[in-house]
């Protein structure tokens, strides 16, 4: 078994559904300075990207949106796998290894684009749904991973794009729309041409209120509202109300922090295929 295979087997044993290896050189062709793997770990050569933590097939059948939003994502499992993998790799191979800092660095900007890392590790390609990385086998996946000074054979980008699915190409040719567009008319737009993505626009500024309805920005804005509010009773209504209560709980427990929408993915053929054989 090669070292690369050994690492991948370990990742799967730690709970990842899929694993890929990317070279730092490949990522640096696209990532801006300050957001590159070797900005985060000196002399970094490779990244191992773990993917998983996706909603179960049952989660997509939840009775209410709020239920799906609550159980569809948890930051813990892949972050935990990455942390354990970094310890394993340092113990076994004696190469410096760090988990990817997966929170945002400042405001809405990440330390590093996990989408780019996943693409370069061959775990999927950008989709019409806001550039979400789609995996042909699992559909929607969440990513984490490690950065290491160890030179590893990279998997590299996929040769063929996952999105659009053949059924989406058919829909586009008949109706000039897509299931993800119909699910989220505000955030998504774009065009297919010759069965491939020609253009895509993603309004992150609109998606933010839905994907992170009760997260950091919401907390900041409500606190600002409360501080500005001269009326004590109204201040009380802001701070004791259900939106602030949920937001405070979200921040306190790191639950429902992000990925609180999912609507653009609900009719994606790669998500729907998870239903095959389910009862």
């Amino acid at each position, binding site marked *: 078994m090669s070292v690369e295979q050994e690492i991948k087997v370990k990742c799967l044993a730690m709970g990842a559904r899929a694993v890929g290896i990317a070279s730092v050189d490949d990522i640096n062709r696209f990532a*801006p300075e300050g957001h590159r793997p070797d900005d985060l770990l000196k002399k970094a050569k490779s990244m191992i990207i773990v993917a998983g933590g996706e909603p179960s097939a049952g989660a997509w059948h939840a009775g209410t949106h709020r239920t799906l939003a609550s159980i569809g994502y948890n930051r813990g499992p892949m972050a935990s796998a990455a942390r354990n993998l970094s310890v394993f790799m340092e113990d076994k191979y004696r190469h410096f290894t760090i988990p990817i800092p997966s929170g945002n660095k400042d405001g809405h*900007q990440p330390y590093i684009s996990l989408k780019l890392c996943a693409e370069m590790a061959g775990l999927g390609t950008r989709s019409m749904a806001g550039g979400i990385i789609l995996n042909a086998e699992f559909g929607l996946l969440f990513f984490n991973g490690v950065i290491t000074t160890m030179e590893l054979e990279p998997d590299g980008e996929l040769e063929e794009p996952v999105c659009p699915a053949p059924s989406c190409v058919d829909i586009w040719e008949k109706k000039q729309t897509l299931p993800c567009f119909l699910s*989220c008319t505000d955030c998504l737009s774009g065009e297919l041409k010759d069965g491939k993505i020609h253009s*895509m*626009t993603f309004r*992150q500024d609109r998606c933010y209120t*839905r994907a992170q309805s009760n997260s950091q920005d*919401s907390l900041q804005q409500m606190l600002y509202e409360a501080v500005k509010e001269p009326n004590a009773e109204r201040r009380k209504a802001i701070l004791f109300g259900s939106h602030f209560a949920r937001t405070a709980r979200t921040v306190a427990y790191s639950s429902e922090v992000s990925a609180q929408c999912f609507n653009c993915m609900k009719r994606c053929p790669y998500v729907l295929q998870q239903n095959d054989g389910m009862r």
Partner: protein
Amino acid sequence: MSEYVSIELYEKYKQQVWDLSLAIQTLGIDRGNECLSDAEIGERLGLETKVVTEIRCMAECDFIPMQGYFDAEERKELRFKSIK
């Protein structure tokens, strides 16, 4: 710069910083290299990276109205129910 960016500087640059940030992302469309890092925006506008970071973080709260967060739950639930 001091600990906080001045409101004059913020007001002067908030729209430009916002337009160059990740707020609107595209594939296959050349919109003039938007989706820049703070350092890249700073280079474009002649500002220190730290100043850009402060302006962008403030703009991210300012340009996305609170009402959007309040309305989101109902909007998502309606969409969820309509997507069969």
